[in-house]
């Protein structure tokens, strides 16, 4: 049988509204003392009632429209009933039969070929987040659990795709591009590690000749883009191996164990819950007028795809550079800010993609928190252009800037690493190098260009890189001739 991988994703994004979805509590809950960011409503205390935060509706509409969804002009909330200690009302207010958005799609491009694929979006709906359980030690050995409701009532959108992704890599790319969209919409920061973007996946293997779908499993607990890819790759292999042995796949929920790099069974279908959905009587149906939809559509910000086109056109960037810049809204913003003060986009993009991204990744820092602001990076590049430091020295300066957050000029002054502009001093060093390397001089005279590079390198070594390479090269040629 010819096997084909079938993946559908269920993505939750936390909206960056100021207040929670049904109360006035802040959405800024990370790092706060347990159960300090709560009120009777998000604690589900008896008698409290939810009131929808209008901003959440606006953010959700933005999201649904950016994903090319149709909008239900009357949408409503349902209660999803189940018992769990992190769910204070023992039901989650969610949407069921009339979601806000439905029948959308997202067109993704698969690098490096740039092949485009349209992935169907089944629905986009609004719901509330639950609290969090904290186990003393680990979940298996702990004798008790604590509950923190700070996250309870954080607004979420659930985005469900059609089962149209064909590989773990495609799933990862889809998720990256989705993240970039919600970042550009300024509705979610897309931080998977902190849980503001979460992803579950349904995965099965289909016989591509007969088209018969295999039994699917649901994978949870994938907390990074890499984890999504790795977990799904593991699951594809696991399912293929079972099928090869003629063993049936069990429909179940599986947990990605990051430390062991495997998926583990959590619960089977027979234990599947009956959520007893019914319309939420405490909230009125949402009526969304065509005018409101049009207003939001009109005011949608520039989305990654058109931004990429603009970057290529306006900044004359190659497609793959533009692709990297739009993959993370903050990175694109960084580049644009720096661009305003710096003309040579080619040099700029090299520094952004090279030194900046490398250091951010290495230190696990988000672009927004970069110790080197766009202005500071431009400051550094200008020092190179002015001949104050060499490109090579600049890399060292960059690292020092990254550590200290200081301006390039400040570091250069403190460390006295300006370029040697005193020609007499440089000539002395050039003469010394010529004297010490007669063989290379001879090679150069016989037309070996490589020998010149070697000699320039020697001068740079003596000056600890503080000499201007063009000048040194010219000086060597002249001194040898004379």
């Amino acid at each position: 049988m010819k096997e084909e991988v079938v993946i559908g994703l269920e993505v939750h994004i936390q909206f960056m509204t100021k207040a929670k979805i049904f109360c006035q509590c802040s959405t800024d809950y990370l790092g706060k003392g347990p159960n300090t960011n709560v009120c009777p409503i998000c604690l589900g205390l008896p008698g409290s009632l939810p009131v929808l935060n209008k901003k959440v509706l606006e953010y959700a509409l933005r999201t649904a429209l950016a994903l090319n969804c149709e909008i239900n002009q009357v949408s409503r909330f349902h209660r999803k009933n189940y018992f769990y200690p992190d769910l204070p009302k023992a039901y989650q207010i969610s949407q069921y039969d009339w979601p806000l958005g439905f029948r959308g799609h997202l067109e993704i491009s698969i690098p490096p070929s740039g092949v485009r694929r349209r992935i169907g979006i089944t629905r986009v709906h609004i719901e509330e987040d639950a609290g969090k359980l904290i186990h003393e030690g680990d979940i298996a050995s702990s004798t008790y659990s604590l509950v923190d409701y700070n996250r309870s009532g954080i607004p979420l959108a659930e985005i469900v795709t059609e089962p149209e992704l064909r590989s773990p890599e495609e799933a990862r790319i889809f998720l990256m591009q989705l993240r970039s969209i919600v970042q550009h919409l300024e509705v979610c920061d897309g931080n998977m590690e902190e849980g503001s973007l979460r992803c579950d996946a349904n995965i099965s293997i289909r016989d591509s000749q007969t088209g018969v779908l295999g039994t699917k499993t649901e994978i949870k607990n994938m907390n990074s883009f890499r984890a999504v890819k790795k977990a799904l790759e593991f699951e594809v292999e696991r399912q293929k191996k079972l099928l090869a042995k003629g063993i049936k796949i069990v429909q179940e929920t599986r947990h990605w164990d990051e430390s062991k790099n495997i998926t583990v069974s959590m619960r089977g279908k027979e234990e599947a819950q009956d959520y007893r959905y019914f319309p939420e009587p405490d909230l009125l149906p949402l009526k969304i007028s065509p005018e409101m939809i049009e207003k939001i559509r009109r005011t949608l910000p520039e989305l990654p795809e058109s931004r990429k086109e603009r970057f290529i056109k306006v900044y004359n960037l190659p497609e793959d550079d533009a692709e990297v810049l739009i993959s993370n809204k903050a990175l694109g913003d960084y580049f644009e800010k720096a661009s305003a003060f710096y003309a040579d986009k080619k040099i700029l993009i090299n520094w952004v993609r090279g030194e900046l991204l490398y250091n951010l990744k290495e230190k696990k820092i988000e672009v927004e928190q970069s110790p080197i602001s766009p202005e500071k990076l431009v400051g550094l590049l200008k020092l190179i252009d002015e001949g104050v430091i060499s490109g090579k020295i600049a890399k060292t300066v960059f690292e020092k800037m990254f550590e200290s957050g200081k301006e390039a000029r400040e570091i250069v002054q403190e460390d006295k690493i300006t370029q040697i502009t005193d020609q007499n001093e440089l000539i002395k060093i050039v003469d010394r190098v010529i004297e010490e390397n007669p063989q290379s001089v001879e090679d150069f005279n016989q037309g070996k260009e490589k020998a010149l590079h070697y000699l320039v390198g020697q001068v740079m070594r003596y000056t600890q890189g503080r000499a201007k390479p063009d000048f040194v090269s010219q000086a060597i040629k002249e001194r040898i001739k004379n």
Partner: protein
Amino acid sequence: MTLHQLSASEVVNLVKEKKVSVSEIIQDLYDRIAKVDPLVKAFLILNQEEALKQAKEIDTKVKKEEELPPLAGLAIAVKDIIATKGIETTCGSRMLKGFYPPYNATVIDKLKEAGAIIIGKTNLDEFAMGSSTENSAFGPTYNPWDLERVPGGSSGGSAAAVAADEAFIALGTDTGGSIRQPASFCGVVGLKPTYGRVSRYGLIAYASSLDQIGPITKNVSDSALLMRIISGPDNRDSTSVDLPVPDYLKSCQEEIKNIKIGVPREYFVEGMNFEVKDVVYQALKLLEELGAKIEEVSLPHTEYSLPTFYLIATAEASSNLARYDGIQYGYRTENYKDLSSMYQRTRSEGFGPEVKRRIMLGTYALSSGYYDAYYLKAQKVRTLIKEDFTRVFSKYDILVTPTSPTPAFKLKEKMADPLTMYLSDIYTIPVNLAGLPALSLNCGYSKGGLPIGLQLIGKPFEEETILRVAFNYEQNNKVEKRKPLQNLSPQKMVG
């Protein structure tokens, strides 16, 4: 007349005219409670210390000639399903014993701002599920007119307290008749406002699409007085409706000449209690004498009200009461091995039998495979019932019916058979399903001296009309007004 016998409007006026101090009134009320409540058991919690403190504060204001809020010094009893900040709120359940809400219901905020004083929290059927107040985890309340009988329910404590002069005025809640039926059994006035008229914020939910808070009072004008204060939109309750609140007292003064009254044929069935029938017919006669035009009408889907109600109300209840799981607050079993056994035991031990019955019924109605046949069908029938009323109200201003098929029944009489108990609300339930306002007031007595209630049903948000008709009726009713528990004799002691 002693202080505790006064009506709310009389109290408010006496305080304003400085004829009596609030402290005296409140003290007299607590004396009355001390004397009567061992028999009636209307109260679960008394708020004496706080109430007397507030009384003093208002007295100081009076002395300083400061401007007084509209209900200054008015003592009010509150059904113990309405959240009161810092005052225990139990819902008559073991599950919430010791629960002190950190916030007030919107109605409580409004009443406090208006100068009212909470004297205590009244007994009820557990989570308002019942028609006799026998389902309280803390023991029953007794009908002041006959201590062997129930006060009705679920707002039995509030109705009994007002009837026995233990409070001038009380708040009840009504999901299927829980204000009107006890008002009828206790001979007082009970009003269930239109769904959305009074904020439900802080009303601990039984069935969210049916619950409303309303006043239980000694007369119609007190009902109008309280409605003016507690009504109106609330940005904490999405289902509250943004409509202006009329001056109900003023509308009471208008005549009822030419008002069109419909009398639904389906509410007067063969075999109904003849005493109730007689008294209601007499009331209709009086209304006719006052100029009302009375005609028989039909509400054809009435017979489906009870099953429809018990599917929708229990479905919502099964979800609303799921939060009592022993995690955050309230009762938790001491004896459990793991999360699942903690949930099971907590809920088995914390809830009484009627609550469990309704949770199970509601859970069943919402379960996958049964939803369409039960919950969804009930919603469709609910629409038909609503349409019955809409049709009739296109021609008539109000409907008049009995409030309950019988006067107060005896304790334990209906406890063994829940279905018989449910029938006690047969005239009140359709009103909740349709979200309409309705008022019950006394229209006479049985031969045994038990009060009988008359129900007036109005168009949505037209509480004015039913209050006006009720006021006109009350003013012109020549039947001698009686009061229970006036001469207490020791042999009447029970419990």
